């Protein structure tokens, strides 16, 4: 713990905070680190750390959606959980509406909870099989006393209608619903607390294509109606492109590129982003994309490569990449990249 604290201080002195995309940001994440200790032996001695999230900074503007993409195991979900303080961080800060979430005590955090919610990936395991749907959606509302008891039923019905559920679904149990319907229940549960910010952790990846479209449309409609802000975590790049305003690309615990959607999809700068985007299969037999195939697979986060973590698979690898960790730098107004190929806003490699 003391080591973490020291590291935190050192970091703060060494680096200025990440470049913020805009002033009106709802959420600011600065130099966020989440390390999980690896312990072994008789007394569970800590041998090392899995650096699931390692020095990530970004901000999300109010009413927009940030997409977070990357391969499995790169720390996307851990970021989502750390932002909500479902996982404790090891360093950095998360500021929500000007409040430092990780500095709050239990009571203050509990008061803040309704304003930030999460939708999980698997709608089959994130709903209690023993509770009727109305109770699942309304439990937290009652607990937080958000509405008067006499308005409670109408309030829940209203939320369910917004999410495309019918009133008579209230007394049914989750097993009676299909995957898409269950995901609607999860969304209703999050929405019932009237949040400002929702972390959507792969909300559509467990669903069929036609149902995915329904859920994505629903999320967009709710955003327009309630002015919600989303952090949309997904490994499906086409979905992220459709729903996001800004996109962050992660690799092995680092944010390697963060930019406006149009800017990043039209002009990806980081070699990893280029490879990732070129791997999207295009549903048109005549389009033959020039594919950048990455060799090998993602290295172990417990023992990441020195220097730039991507250098082992990068085709543009230079000597400097093997020793020095690249820092996030601005490339134009809405584009940031962490790569040694770029310097002072120009490509040098």
């Amino acid at each position, binding site marked *: 713990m003391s080591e973490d604290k020291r590291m935190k201080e050192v970091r703060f002195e060494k680096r200025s905070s990440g470049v913020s995309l805009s002033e009106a940001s709802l959420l600011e994440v600065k130099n966020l680190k989440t390390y999980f200790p690896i312990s072994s032996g008789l007394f569970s001695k800590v041998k090392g750390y899995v650096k699931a999230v390692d020095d990530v900074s970004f901000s999300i503007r109010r009413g927009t959606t940030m997409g977070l993409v990357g391969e*499995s195991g790169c720390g996307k979900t851990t970021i989502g959980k750390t932002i909500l303080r479902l996982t404790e961080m090891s360093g950095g800060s998360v500021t929500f509406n000007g409040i430092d979430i990780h500095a709050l005590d239990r009571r203050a955090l509990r008061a803040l909870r309704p304003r930030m919610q999460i939708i999980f990936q698997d709608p089959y395991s994130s709903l209690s099989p023993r509770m009727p749907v109305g109770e699942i959606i309304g439990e937290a509302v009652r607990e937080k006393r958000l509405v008067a008891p006499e308005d409670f039923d109408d309030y829940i019905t209203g939320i369910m209608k917004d999410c495309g559920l019918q009133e008579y679904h209230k007394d049914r149990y989750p097993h009676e619903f299909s995957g898409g319907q269950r995901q609607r229940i999860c969304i209703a549960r999050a929405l019932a607390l009237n949040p400002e910010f929702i972390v959507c952790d792969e909300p559509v990846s467990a669903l069929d294509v*036609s149902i995915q*479209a329904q859920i*994505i449309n629903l999320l967009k409609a709710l955003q327009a109606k309630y002015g919600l802000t989303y952090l949309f975590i997904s490994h499906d790049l086409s979905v992220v492109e459709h729903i996001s305003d800004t996109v962050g690309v992660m690799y092995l615990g680092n944010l390697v590129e963060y930019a406006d959607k149009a800017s990043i999809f039209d002009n990806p700068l980081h070699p990893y982003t280029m490879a990732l985007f070129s791997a999207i*299969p*295009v*549903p048109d037999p*005549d389009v033959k994309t020039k594919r950048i195939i990455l060799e090998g697979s993602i290295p172990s986060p417990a023992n990441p490569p020195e220097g730039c973590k991507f250098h082992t698979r990068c085709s543009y690898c230079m000597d400097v990449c093997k020793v020095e960790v690249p820092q996030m730098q601005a490339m134009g107004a809405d584009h940031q990249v962490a790569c040694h190929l770029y310097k002072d806003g120009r490509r040098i490699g």
Partner: protein
Amino acid sequence: MERKKGMIQNWFGRKNGRGSAKSVNYMSAKEIRQISRENRRITDELERMRNRENVPESEYVTAMKDPGNILEIEDLNTWFFTDIGTVKAVDGVSFSVPRGKTVGVVGESGCGKSVTALSIMQLVQRPQGQVVKGELRFRTDDLTIDLVKIPTDKMQKIRGNEISMIFQEPMTSLNPVFKVGMQIDEVIALHNEGMKREEVKARTIEMIKLVGIANAEGVYDMYPHELSGGMRQRAMIAMALGCTPKLIIADEPTTALDVTIQAQIMDLLRQLKDRINSSIMLITHDLGVIAEMADYVVVMYAGRIVEQGTAAEVFHHPAHPYTVGLMASRPSRIRNTEQLYSIPGSVPNPIDMPNYCYFRDRCNRAYEACNGDYPPTFSISGTHSAACYHYSAVNEVGK
């Protein structure tokens, strides 16, 4: 609105579109007993047929309709006899796999894609699951056999040898307590009696190298948990290729993998198909993967084929409203729309299928003709056909 309400009730089987059918969720114990007794009678009969000894060769040797095909599926019906009713998981499916080509089968979960593959491999869970009707003609070196009628002991010589399958989950389809090399050895040794152990090992290592694993000797001695997802899928592919099969059935081979690994595996499958000159039947729900890999596309919905044709025909001129809807519901770079098209409703209850077109209640082009029987297959061009009344002006190809 009225129609929508009916559909929602349909999802839970409370009330059927026809209004007369029994409730599926709430059945009395007596009814269930009756159904299961009846099921046992049917499945016992089928099992008796299957377990006969010394089946004469004439019963399962047939002839191909087109010698250019490696596999011909005709009117395949695979049903599951459950205690709450019969599920027609595959209901009259016909298509063929030409030699050296890739056929993509696409559809949502529960549409019968995997059951079709399992029927070909004779791996359907018996006795509840049975191929009740249809022919699966497969061309081996010297004769054409019907995979539906062939007895189990003969099938064991074909399965893994002439037809092999790559499963979706590389994590669960490798045995965790055996080394990867040994598991591949087993397949090769089983189908090549008389091969020496060193030869088998050499062949295994050759296969591991073929699928692009650099450290082949090392991986030979590793356990599955020591490999990453992509490497495990490569090991599965090496196992499938061990006996140079004529037909590879790949059931969602890349669904559990990341996009970058998916690109590697697809690239590998494409190269290997040409190198060992086999055919691939690729099952997936990802239209992008199909577009890149497949020569022919088969679109399935609720146990039936709704459209089939060459990849170019299906992707450029999708005919069936379901195919059109499926394509429109994927976000795409080319047409960047604010709102995605979404097919309303969901698949009808498989136990209690309607007697009209299964897609009618979700279709945005339904008209009077759609209230009639399930539409037969109408041909649009020589290779392109769809089961939709909108194409009835063109001639009919039979049911």
